[in-house]
């Protein structure tokens, strides 16, 4: 018996033919989850499609991407891949050649989301101009969320920690599944009617299906039309829903929403105390300034007071008195000096000086100077003054000059 021996290439070729003749494998739609997704620089997209039972390599050539792939495919995406399954002879493996890739289930939701987002955005429902400011100091906070979720507990914890005096009113809503959107809309209407200051609409994290109610148009419209400011808080930081775009403010999480909605009581009290202290300080400063001004005026007034004027005049008077005295003293000194000069010159001309040259002067008994022979009689006693003494003389004869 002769054994037929085939080359690897022949076998692969054979299998490839079998595949290509198979009607089903030529055009097939496979459902699975994406893994090992790689966007090659050539433009081709290589990925593995898998489910619980198995995995299959797949490729989408760059030429098919334009018509067949409308989203950025990533790890974990649930997809429907349409294309052919062919054998790659070089490695003896088969793989899927994708002509189009769509998101499955949730994936379709994603497209719906994009479409609605685009529509509402074009209608202007996301415009900043429609956003109502979130009041800073509120008394009543409405909450539309599930009564059993983590979200309501988070909001309650944060809100009561910040300010236990704000009234929280919960509208227990269905946040996922059948009737969730209607339930959320009812909650918004009920709380608006009741009259709260701010409403938080939200829920904790979940898959896109879980969050879907917040992407429904009726919810978006209810939020848009609500006159009470609404903070949306859906899922985690990375989850964006239509509700987040249309709400007056988007909080990344329910806890964050509570922080945005409820003011911190202690901080406000502190603020008030600070403001009071500032006011006190200003007034004190004002008083100090006024006191200073007053003391300035007092000083000026003192200068102008009659008492001060009197003192001033008295002082001037004293000054003048002193000057006067000085002047007087000077004058006396000057006169004394003059006198000394005069008396010196007088002495130089004194008659006594003449006496020393042989002259004398006569006095009668009455100490009168005798200047002529008139009234001089014989036997009169005269005193003859000389420089070194006097002579008492008796007149013996009086001879008149011819």
């Amino acid at each position, binding site marked *: 018996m002769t054994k037929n021996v085939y080359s690897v290439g022949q076998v692969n070729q054979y299998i490839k033919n079998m595949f290509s003749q198979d009607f089903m494998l030529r055009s097939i739609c496979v459902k699975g989850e994406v893994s090992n997704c790689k966007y090659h620089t050539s433009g081709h997209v290589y990925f593995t499609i898998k489910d619980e039972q198995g995995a299959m390599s797949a490729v989408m050539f760059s030429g098919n991407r334009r018509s067949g792939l409308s989203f950025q495919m990533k790890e974990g995406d649930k997809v429907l891949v349409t294309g052919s399954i062919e054998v790659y002879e070089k490695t003896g493996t088969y793989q899927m050649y994708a002509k189009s890739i769509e998101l499955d289930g949730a994936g379709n939701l994603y497209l719906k989301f994009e479409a609605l987002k685009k529509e509402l955005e074009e209608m202007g429902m996301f415009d900043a101009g429609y956003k109502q400011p979130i009041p800073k100091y509120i008394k009543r906070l409405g909450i539309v969320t599930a009564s059993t979720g983590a979200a309501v507990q988070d909001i309650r914890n944060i809100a009561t920690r910040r300010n236990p*005096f704000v009234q929280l*009113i919960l509208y227990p809503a269905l946040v996922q599944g059948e009737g969730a959107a209607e339930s959320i809309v009812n909650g918004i209407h009920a709380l608006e009617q009741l009259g709260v200051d701010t409403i938080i609409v939200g829920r904790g994290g979940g898959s896109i299906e879980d969050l879907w109610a917040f992407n429904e148009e009726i919810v978006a419209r209810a939020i848009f039309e609500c006159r009470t400011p609404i903070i949306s808080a859906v899922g985690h930081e990375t989850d964006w829903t239509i509700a987040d775009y249309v709400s007056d403010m988007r909080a990344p999480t329910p806890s964050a929403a509570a922080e945005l909605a409820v003011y911190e009581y202690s901080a406000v009290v502190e603020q008030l105390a600070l*403001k009071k202290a500032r006011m006190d300080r200003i007034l004190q400063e004002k008083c100090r300034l006024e006191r200073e001004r007053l003391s300035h005026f007092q000083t000026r007034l003192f200068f102008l007071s009659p008492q001060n004027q009197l003192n001033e005049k008295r002082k001037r008077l004293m000054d003048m008195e002193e000057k006067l005295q000085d002047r007087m003293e000077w004058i006396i000194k000057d006169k004394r000096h003059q006198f000394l000069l005069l008396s010196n010159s007088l002495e130089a001309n004194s008659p006594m000086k003449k006496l020393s040259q042989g002259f004398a002067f006569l006095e009668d008994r009455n100490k009168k100077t005798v200047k002529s022979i008139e009234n001089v009689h014989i036997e009169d006693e005269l005193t003859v003054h000389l420089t070194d003494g006097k002579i008492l003389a008796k007149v013996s004869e009086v001879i008149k000059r011819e």
Partner: protein
Amino acid sequence: MSEEKITLEERFLNIENILDQMEKGDISLDQSFELYKKGLGEIKAANELLDTVEKEMLVLTANGDLEEF
């Protein structure tokens, strides 16, 4: 505007305004005192607005009643 309708936010604004006016140098001491008195009134009113009764969370029922959570 009636007294009760003034919100905390407006009170804060009023206080800020009063502070601004008080900080201007060219007002009289009398005016300062007037403003100070007004400011104290605003602060008192603001404190009163900070209602301090601790509140339980309420649940709004389908027929519009409020019940404790």
